[in-house]
């Protein structure tokens, strides 16, 4: 065992730089992917023109709240300017806050608060409209609640005298303290009004795919060493080829596991993401064995790279993580059985595939033993 580890050290010593690069690549891919995904999301906001016919407090509040969303950038413009830009498709749509907005809002009249323009190329018109309507509903809801309370107050002729403003302020306070009010008026798709981040990517998910791919790449040593001219020497050595291979797989596994724990630390620091250690360990062992079995079957380095890339892409698609048709688990349950990453992606221990790989390793070992006996 010690001897085999030393021989591996001799070989790895010559390529430690490239090995380190490969080993760290899944982390870099995950971090890189997440930060690009964020910038793309930041850059990708729908330009919307806002025309304020009245410059009331409520009108400005609406404008501000629309701008708070990462989905939309609202520009305050004159009506003419806005329509000109809409015609030139510089704006997706234009919303006009009508004269009397604040009064209508406070009297609970929800009609004719807004007027909108859109073109045949206003792809985001509907979601933006819904978002603005939901913000207004939130506001009218609040005012309605305030009015109800005031009415109650007058009815019960209490000596306390609340003004609408005080009640709205109170309601805002409650909204911040409790999620209740906010939940009711959440704009669909913009899940958190106070923390406007679009879709949240899980670094572990990106990492899992990268890790599977890169592990197969790293395991090309199996192919290279099987083909190496030195392979003919194994029958004349104390340590037999299958043992040598098995211990080396173990060495790689341990090195990769250590890096995985470092990864867990990095993801915690960067994204406050925690992970179940057993889920990570079982995943790593499974991926190493799977990579080993795969390259043992393929026997050609180039084909193994191609196969790894295609397979990873297929897994990304059937996991439904990147393509829009649905979340994890939305695709039929049976197909997940064929996805070695599924258990890890759902935060579970990789049991089935690990068992499958261990059986595969046992078969491989027995066959190799026979071949070299």
């Amino acid at each position: 065992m010690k001897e085999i580890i030393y021989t591996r050290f001799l070989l790895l010593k010559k390529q430690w730089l490239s090995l380190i690069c490969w080993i760290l690549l899944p982390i870099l891919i995950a971090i890189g992917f997440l930060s690009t995904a964020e910038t793309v999301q930041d850059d990708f906001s729908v330009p919307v023109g806002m025309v304020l016919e009245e410059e009331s407090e409520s009108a400005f509040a609406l404008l501000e709240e629309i701008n708070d969303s990462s989905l939309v950038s609202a520009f305050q413009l004159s009506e003419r300017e806005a329509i000109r830009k809409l015609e030139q498709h510089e704006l997706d749509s234009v919303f006009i806050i009508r004269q009397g907005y604040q009064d209508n809002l406070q009297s609970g009249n929800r009609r004719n608060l807004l007027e909108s323009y859109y073109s045949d190329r206003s792809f985001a018109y509907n979601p933006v409209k819904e978002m603005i309507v939901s913000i207004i509903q939130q506001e009218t809801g609040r005012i309605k609640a305030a009015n109800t309370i005031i009415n109650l107050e007058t009815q019960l002729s209490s000596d306390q005298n609340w003004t609408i403003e005080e009640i709205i302020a109170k309601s805002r306070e409650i909204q911040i303290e409790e999620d209740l009010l906010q939940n009711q008026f959440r704009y669909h798709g913009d899940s958190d009004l106070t923390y406007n981040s679009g879709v949240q990517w899980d670094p572990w998910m990106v990492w899992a795919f990268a890790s599977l791919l890169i592990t197969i790449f790293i395991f090309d040593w199996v192919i290279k060493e099987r083909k190496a001219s030195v392979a003919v020497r194994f029958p004349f050595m104390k340590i037999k080829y299958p043992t040598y291979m098995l211990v080396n797989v173990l060495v790689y596994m341990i090195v990769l596991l250590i890096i995985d724990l470092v990864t867990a630390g990095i993801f915690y620091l960067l994204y406050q993401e925690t992970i179940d250690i057993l889920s990570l360990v079982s995943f790593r062992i499974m991926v190493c064995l799977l990579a080993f079995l795969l390259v043992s079957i393929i026997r050609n380095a180039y084909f193994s790279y191609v196969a790894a890339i295609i397979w990873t892409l297929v897994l990304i698609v059937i996991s439904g993580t990147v393509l829009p048709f649905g979340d994890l688990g939305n695709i039929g349950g049976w197909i997940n059985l064929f996805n070695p990453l599924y258990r890890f992606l759902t935060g579970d221990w990789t049991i089935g595939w690990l068992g499958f790989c261990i059986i595969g390793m046992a078969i491989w070992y027995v066959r190799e033993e026979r071949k070299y006996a």
Partner: protein
Amino acid sequence: MLKVEGLNKSFHKKTILDNLSFNINHGEIVGLVGENGAGKSTLLQILATTMKPTSGEILLGQRNYQKDKAKIRKQIGFVPQDIAVWEQLTVEENMTFFEKLSWIKKSNAQLKEICQDMNLDRWKEPVKNLSGGMKRKLNLAISLIHDPSLLLLDEPTVGIDLKSRKEIGAYLRKQATDHNKTIIYTSHDMDEIQELCDRVITIGEDSFYKNLLQEADKEVLSF
């Protein structure tokens, strides 16, 4: 020491080795000659246990090739026709690598001595920078790490200059005479065969080598 009886080998009904029988004694150097494709490498691989004969019996000392394969392998030093070393490692690292996996533990000094005995002195040099002759020497040195008593060498001197060839030859002679090792090796160089070998085995249909060696008054066994 090595006893071969009625050895046959065919690939897909094509007979390569046809009823070979011979004895080889301790400390003997035996040359194996024949044209390309005659079956020299095949015979060496069978004697090295890495290929099974179609029929026939082989004994190494008292040990039977069919029953005691594992123990026989410990005694065999096989030098493959294609150089089997790690190109990216140095001479030292190559020796250490195979020593670690070997039956016998050797110190760094002992490993270095094997190399120096055949004038392979570029100990810290990566193999990829070595000349062909140096690589051949290392190819041989690695096979000697576990002190085998039977050395099987497949064209150990092919494609190298006369000086290295002489050095390897002298080394083999010393191994046979001083250390009582049995050596079987193949070569296409008849001068070398005549100089080094006690006896010669020729195989193949072509009687060219047989006639050549008999003229030169060598003891020849032909199959």
